[in-house]
């Protein structure tokens, strides 16, 4: 199958998945209790006003008409207005994307930078103390809940030691870069880095642990394969055997996991964002949920679905690039 056909098929599958998410969200809203018009207007609105809003928003139409209106809006990128703040949902989602992406990327960087060397050391010094240390670390990392780890980091490194600031960050990455470009000052970037460190560690710990395990077991598997012996037999320097051959092949499944993890991180950093008051999508989702702000909730969930599906397609393409055997099929 050619690359083009492959992409088209994956895209169609992706669209189907997103449609499913949209429909389920609509269904949940339809069956959930509470009158939207009352929610929008708040306590004390007159019956007349409520009726007016119901008419205006199409809430008196039959359910299928509402569904198709809603779907139509989604297709052209109209997600509606927030019931609480009466702002456009797209804008409310888009303004929160940078913080979430920054955190997801930072957590992934933490995971890659720590996990892959650790996994390699662990695999090449099997059953030595370094290996036991790495195994213990990953066991702890996998079994530590995020909210606890986040609180502990804030308490120990933030409050007691005072190394890292706590509270809402004053500056985003884009602004920090602007400062650098306009004033040549690294100051804001430093602040940004200080604020993102603890959330990134918190969010990255689980994945660091996971990828350490994956790297270790994958590499142990690969090291036992005959082509490794054959590469050694032809006199190839051990660095090349280990990294160019073995690690590269180990990376194929790890890339998949990393990609899927990026998808999860984009939407799933709810707990970490809440603990650190991080101005990302997860925090906004929680806010929307608490206020029963359905359009905002739908907008965020659909965005997460789109992000997840796109990342999956990218990962698959990358996988195809790395593994020539898949490329053929």
């Amino acid at each position, binding site marked *: 199958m050619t690359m083009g056909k492959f992409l088209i098929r994956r895209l169609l599958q992706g669209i189907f998945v997103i449609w499913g998410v949209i429909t389920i969200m609509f269904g949940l809203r339809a069956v959930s209790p509470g009158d939207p018009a009352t929610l929008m207007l708040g306590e004390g609105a007159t019956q007349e006003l409520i009726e007016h809003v119901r008419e205006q928003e199409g809430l008196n139409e039959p359910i299928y008409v509402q569904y198709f209106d809603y779907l139509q809006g989604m297709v052209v990128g109209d997600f509606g207005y927030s019931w609480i703040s009466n702002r456009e949902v797209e804008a409310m989602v888009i303004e929160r994307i940078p913080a979430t992406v920054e955190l997801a990327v930072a957590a992934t960087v933490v995971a890659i930078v720590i996990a892959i060397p650790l996994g390699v050391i662990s695999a090449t010094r099997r059953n030595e103390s370094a290996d036991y240390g790495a195994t213990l670390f990953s066991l702890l990392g996998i079994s530590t809940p995020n909210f606890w780890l986040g609180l502990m980091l804030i308490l120990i490194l933030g409050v007691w030691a005072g190394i890292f600031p706590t509270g809402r960050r004053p500056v985003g990455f884009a602004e920090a870069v602007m400062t650098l470009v306009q004033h040549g000052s690294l100051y804001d970037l430093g602040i940004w880095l200080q604020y993102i460190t603890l959330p990134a560690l918190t969010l990255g710990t689980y994945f660091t642990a996971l990828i350490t395990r994956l790297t270790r077991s994958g590499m142990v598997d690969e090291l036992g394969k005959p082509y490794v*012996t054959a*590469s050694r037999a*032809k006199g190839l320097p051990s*660095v090349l055997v280990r990294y160019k051959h073995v690690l590269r092949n180990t990376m194929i499944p790890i890339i998949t996991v990393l990609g899927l993890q990026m998808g999860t991180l984009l939407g799933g950093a709810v707990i970490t964002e809440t603990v650190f008051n991080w101005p990302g999508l997860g925090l906004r989702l929680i806010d929307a949920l608490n206020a029963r702000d359905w359009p905002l909730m739908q907008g965020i969930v659909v965005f997460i679905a789109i992000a997840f599906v796109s990342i999956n397609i990218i990962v698959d393409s990358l996988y195809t690039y790395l593994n020539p055997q898949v490329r053929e099929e």
Partner: protein
Amino acid sequence: MTEDILRVHDLSTRYFTQDGQVNAVSNLDLRIERGEVFGIVGESGSGKSVTARSIMDLIEPPGEITGGEIKYRNGEFAETVADEHPNAVNGEFVNLLELPPNVRQSLRGTSFSMIFQDPESSFNPTLTVGEQLAEAVEVQRRASARPRSTRARTQSEEYSLGNFLLSTVLPSQKYITEESRERAIELLELVGIPDPVERADEYPHEYSGGMLQRAMIAQALAGEPDVLVADEPTTALDVTIQAQVLDLLDELQEETGMTILLITHNLGVIARMCDRVGVMYAGEIVERGSLEDVFDEQVHPYTQGLLGSVPDLEGATRRLQPIPGNVPSLLDHEMDDRCYFADRCPKAMEDCLEHPPEFEVPGSDDHEVRCVLAEMEYAESRAVPDDHFSETSRTAADKHADPDRTEDDVQPQRAEQPVDDSGGDRL
């Protein structure tokens, strides 16, 4: 020219497993002459491959070479290492086991190279064949460019992790050069792969098994080695392809004059290729000599058994004579100090209960056998009773359960169980 290129003396390679120490190769002696094809033949598990890997320094934990010498004759190399490793050098010979791993690595690809049984798993599936061949060429190219001092040879020029990381951004730091790529294509052509330019850019899974084995031979030849170790080079191939690959090896050997150590369980391959043969059993060579010595004048009952297990067209009506039983486990604590084949040997005698030395067989100057039959005739009167070995191995097994139990205790039990289906233990 009949000088020795390789002398293996008293080589022992052991594996330290959870079940105990496995004596994969025990006190093995081997002498290979320059330019010959030396064959090692034996059943699976007899230690053939371990011998090959010991010579290549490819033994990995839990395996370990525990003793002996592997002496390689190369005057130039001897001079190079003489200053830093005087203990290793003796005239033109260098004892490889006295050298540190990095120096031994520098010999791989350039002095020794190896082809493997299964070409499909012996290539990295995610790199093109051309790239993998080019790596082997590059090993040789860099080795010949190195200065002669061993320290410089093995340390300053070593491709480091830093180089590798840089190579991901700087093409100039890449291990492989354009020249070595071109040489790789020439090598593919040399081993008879059509359209080598296109084929070089293909991945191993796009090759057929035979093609891939040719490519592996090309890869092994990249370093113009003195000794080519071929570990079951044709086992994974179809019969017609086998013949082609053997022809190719033959041709290349004639052209380059390299020495081949051929490991196989296939007597047909041995007969077709080899000048001299060693028959391996339970980690030692039990019979060695010229092809004629071993095939026509063999003394060891094991050699006879091996030859008897081969189907032959002329005597198609004759039933094959398999050797009963299996190769012993080679676990140190289960090996008695006897002839290791005695439990399967149709001619086992009381004399076989002591481990036999190597005897010279009269009538040929290079024919040796580790069997008392070289010195005496088989005598029925001295034969070991049929149940001797099943007896001892049984007690050994029972001793695990109850160390205090003597053989007398075991005896009545055996009477109740006359049928012994343990196969391997029986004669």
